[in-house]
């Protein structure tokens, strides 16, 4: 997740353009040395075993190394050795941008150094950063601090990004959020969470973007905009919100209720309190996440 925020930092500080960043994010997969590839390279696993672990990863919320150990393909000590040799995400992005000729390695290192100073990151390894630090970075980036539910919005967005990386992909950069009172939207999956905190949530985008989002959620989907797209995007929202509520229940002992998700076409949301439009620029287009402190008035 640091990679995506760091990507935005490169963008906002004019190190690279948005097109270059998106191409770099896309190119990461060419550069990235995945744990499975490293395991094959070291002779710890066969490619068939790696495929089995990848298949299982789509269903089970566990990292590659953990699953490989669970499934009896590797020992803990071997996984640790591989992890040490695996490049970190932000370095992979840096390498991709350098390989594409968009930035020099020297300039990239300077940008990284400045980013760490600005966000008070004093670790040499970003992956060792704890959830708390990640929350701080999300809070500093979005500045939801002007109202009561700020901490919940920050937690919500932090978890949302984790789920985007897990279920959609890492080829995106967050853009600055906009505070809104009213908004017209063409295609929006919505769901209301209530209890100690009330949050009305949504995912909005153009048809073409929704189709690609659905394809990422449901790998077997291919087709035009239809009820499968609506159901896929809605289910992704439901999944994110469910996992958010589970997290609050387990970690903070806060129990929330969730209403069934819905998909709305061509509506205007108004009478909104503490409402934010959170745009995320993927390589396939912009997806807007909607976070509101009350149930808006919806005009069709």
């Amino acid at each position, binding site marked *: 997740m640091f990679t995506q925020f760091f990507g935005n930092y490169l963008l906002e500080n004019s190190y690279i353009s948005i097109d270059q960043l998106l191409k770099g994010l896309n190119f990461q997969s060419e550069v990235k040395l995945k744990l499975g590839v490293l395991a094959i390279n070291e002779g710890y696993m066969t490619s068939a075993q790696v495929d089995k672990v990848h298949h*299982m990863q*789509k*269903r*089970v*919320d566990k990292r590659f190394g953990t699953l490989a150990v669970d499934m009896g393909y590797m020992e803990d000590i071997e996984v640790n050795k591989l992890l040490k040799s695996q490049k970190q995400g932000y370095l992979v992005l840096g390498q991709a941008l350098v390989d594409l000729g968009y930035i020099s390695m020297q300039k990239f290192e300077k940008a990284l150094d400045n980013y760490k100073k600005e966000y008070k990151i004093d670790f040499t390894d970003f992956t060792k950063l704890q959830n708390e630090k990640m929350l701080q970075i999300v809070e500093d980036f979005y500045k939801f601090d002007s109202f009561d539910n700020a901490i919940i919005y920050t937690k919500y967005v932090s978890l949302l990004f984790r789920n985007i990386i897990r*279920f959609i992909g890492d080829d995106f950069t967050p853009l600055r959020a906009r505070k809104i009172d009213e908004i017209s939207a063409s295609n929006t999956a919505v769901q209301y969470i209530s209890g100690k905190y009330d949050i009305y949530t949504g995912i909005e985008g153009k048809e073409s973007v929704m189709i690609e989002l659905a394809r990422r*959620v*449901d790998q077997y989907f291919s087709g035009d905009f239809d*009820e*499968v797209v609506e*159901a*896929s995007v*809605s*289910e992704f929202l*439901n*999944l994110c*919100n*469910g*996992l958010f*509520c*589970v997290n*609050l*229940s*387990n970690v903070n002992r806060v*129990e*929330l209720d*969730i*209403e*069934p*998700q819905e998909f709305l076409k061509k509506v205007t949301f108004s009478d909104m309190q503490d409402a934010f439009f959170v745009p995320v620029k993927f390589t396939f287009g912009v997806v807007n996440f909607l976070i509101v402190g009350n149930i808006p008035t919806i005009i069709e």
Partner: protein
Amino acid sequence: MIRELKILICDDSLIIRRTLKDMLNEIGCKKIYEAVNGVDAIEKYKEIDPDLVFMDIIMPEKSGVEALIEIKKYDENANVVVVSSALTQKYVKAAISAGASEFIQKPVSSYQVQKIIDRL
């Protein structure tokens, strides 16, 4: 034996119904029925008398927990596995009180589904 199992999938999301159906088909289950909310689930249960139900919690019309309570009143031996993205302590406690036999946190894996079927 597996071919003959009658399984009812109740979820308002067609994506989840299709995913579960595909997983069950792969295991060899052929008699699969679908319900789109709690009200539909109760009706289909009475009509089909399934061996196993996969039940979502958050649904329109009637929630999975409400449907589970009614199904258990109708058939105390009903075997209902709750499948939800929101397995919070509150929802799990409510589902246990209502008589859920097992739980699956979404996203559903074929491994979890296989284990449930193996235990039947």
